[in-house]
């Protein structure tokens, strides 16, 4: 029997929302923080959850929906526990992000929605996550960024999450951040050779944003 969910905020959650309301001159401006709290609580933003946010902030449901539906990080469908936002954008795409995405598709045996066979994971291609220097990267469940991904590091991360262990925060210490300028002069200008056209690529658009 399906568990019935009660769509109410606890007193603590209400107080948390009030704290956000107090930041803005207009109550409705707290809609994004309130949606974050609702998504944290219910796992995704069902119509009932959005209705609750609307009534809590005295605003029309349509406006709440209009906001929630705009952003990729708000889930408008029930989703598996761990989302992997794998960056295949700009830099990551050129630095192995596509291969990581393919690896994830295969190793998790995802369906056309990007959901893993065991129902615990969900993958999609992410746009730039502002960590291009450590690309390829991915973000787990709207939270942790995993840097310098390799297929092996991806698999290790999956293993940890199977045991519900979130990988630790990687501060990405600025270890390279200031080059001790190695006296390596720039080479003479050279003509770049034309690269021959690569083999045609079949683009799979599955498991992207709806």
């Amino acid at each position, binding site marked *: 029997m399906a568990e019935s969910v009660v769509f109410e905020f606890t007193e603590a959650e209400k107080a948390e929302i009030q704290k956000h309301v107090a930041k803005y001159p207009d109550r409705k*401006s707290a809609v994004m923080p309130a949606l974050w709290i609702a998504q944290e609580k219910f796992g995704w933003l069902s119509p009932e959850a959005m209705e609750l946010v609307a009534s809590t902030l005295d605003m029309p449901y349509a406006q709440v929906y209009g*906001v929630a539906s705009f952003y990729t990080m708000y889930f408008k469908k029930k989703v598996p526990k761990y989302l992997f936002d794998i960056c295949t954008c700009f830099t990551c795409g050129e630095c192995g992000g596509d291969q990581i995405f393919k690896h994830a598709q295969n190793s998790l045996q995802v369906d056309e929605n990007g959901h893993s066979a065991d129902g615990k994971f969900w993958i999609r291609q992410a746009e730039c996550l*502002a960590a291009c220097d450590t690309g390829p990267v991915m973000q787990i469940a709207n939270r942790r960024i995993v840097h310098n991904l390799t297929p092996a590091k991806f698999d290790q991360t999956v293993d940890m999450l199977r045991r519900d262990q979130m990988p630790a925060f990687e501060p990405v210490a600025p270890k390279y951040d200031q080059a001790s300028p190695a006296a390596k002069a720039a080479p003479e200008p050279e003509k770049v050779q034309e690269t021959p056209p690569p083999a045609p690529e079949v683009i799979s658009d599955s498991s992207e944003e709806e």
Partner: protein
Amino acid sequence: MENWRNYTKVLIPDIPNLNQIDVYQKNGGYEQLKEVLTSGKWNPKSVTDEVKAANIRGRGGAGFNAGLKWSFMPPKVEGLPRYLACNGDESEPGTFKDRRIFMFNPHLFIEGATIACYAMQMDAAYVYMRGEFADWIDKFQEAVDQAYAKGMLGKNIMGSGFDLDIFVHKGGGAYICGEETSLMESLEGKRPYPRSKPPFPAQFGLWGKPTTINNIETLANVPLVIKNGAKWWSSIGAPAHPGPVLYGLSGHINRPGVYEYPTGMKITDMIYEVGGGMRNNKKLKAVSPGGSSCPLLTAEMVHGGLTMDADSLRTVGSVMGTSGLCVLDEDTDMVKFSYRIAKFYDHESCGQCTPCREGTGWFVKILRKFVENRGETKDLDLLLELCDTMEGRTVCALADATAWPIRSALIHFRSEFEARIVSKASFATA
């Protein structure tokens, strides 16, 4: 720029735990705020004038003089609130510098934002951070809490009578929210469609009130200007586009990262010295100088001595953007690269304007044909026509930001596109 090798970092100096307020204060932090608020030497106008004289050209992409922007604020009217919006959306592909400030020197930014609010007599500052910064949002909030605890924020700061609140707002994952008016709509709790301008934010900004918006790095420079003077600050780097800058280096190089150096760095120095050279000793093919919106540079241009400042990049039709350099080697497939850029903008277009909503989709469709070696000769003209219909015809600059890199790829790497056109023979019979 010969002496860049002796440059001493001021935005992200190598001081451990600088994100802790005690460490920051021990190293002279919040002294500039104290001087501005309590020494009696400064008033709002003189702070604005000093910042204007320094010529901090906005680090968010557009490169507009920050102090000049501040001076557009209308005179303060008692009882009418006014706001500072701090743009930490950092979603431009290839850009990852503001995160370094949030992580390693958040108090420099807080101090700068507070001085800016004093100069413009603001009632509150809102820091908009992209939702994907979840971990850094928590860390930055800690820094804000520390500043409140030490009386650097809140009521009657340092006994000066000046009050200020700084609020952190978490985004939901949408590139468009980095556009200034979209950011304001998002903060207000609306669907974040960019507004048509005019009216400009100084007249009609957050909640319809006078507002100024600046990038995080722009504001982090403010205490440095106050500390050492506009003259000192503007003597760093390229004269017409001065100052310290956080360069992002990513792509096919040995040492990607965030590097602080003066503006006007030679791109070859950035790649071969700072960045440790090309990965696997490959040859350079192209550089995107400042985020995905910038027109691309060819290896010839880069080796011709281009420097990272507006004037130098303008000579080849490009811009400094967010100074995040993406370096691409000879193996890069420029067709696929362009396709991925188009896909990004197609995903991120808010859909409000027809040329942008339809145009980004068409770019994806047509470029995909080339990726799959199904391009047709007429498509190349069609792509350029699309660029024409998108530039300068929309509510915000996202449409231009799509057209610029793609146009530059079509011009500079045309042969790669031509090589992906279905062979003439099969085309003729088709």
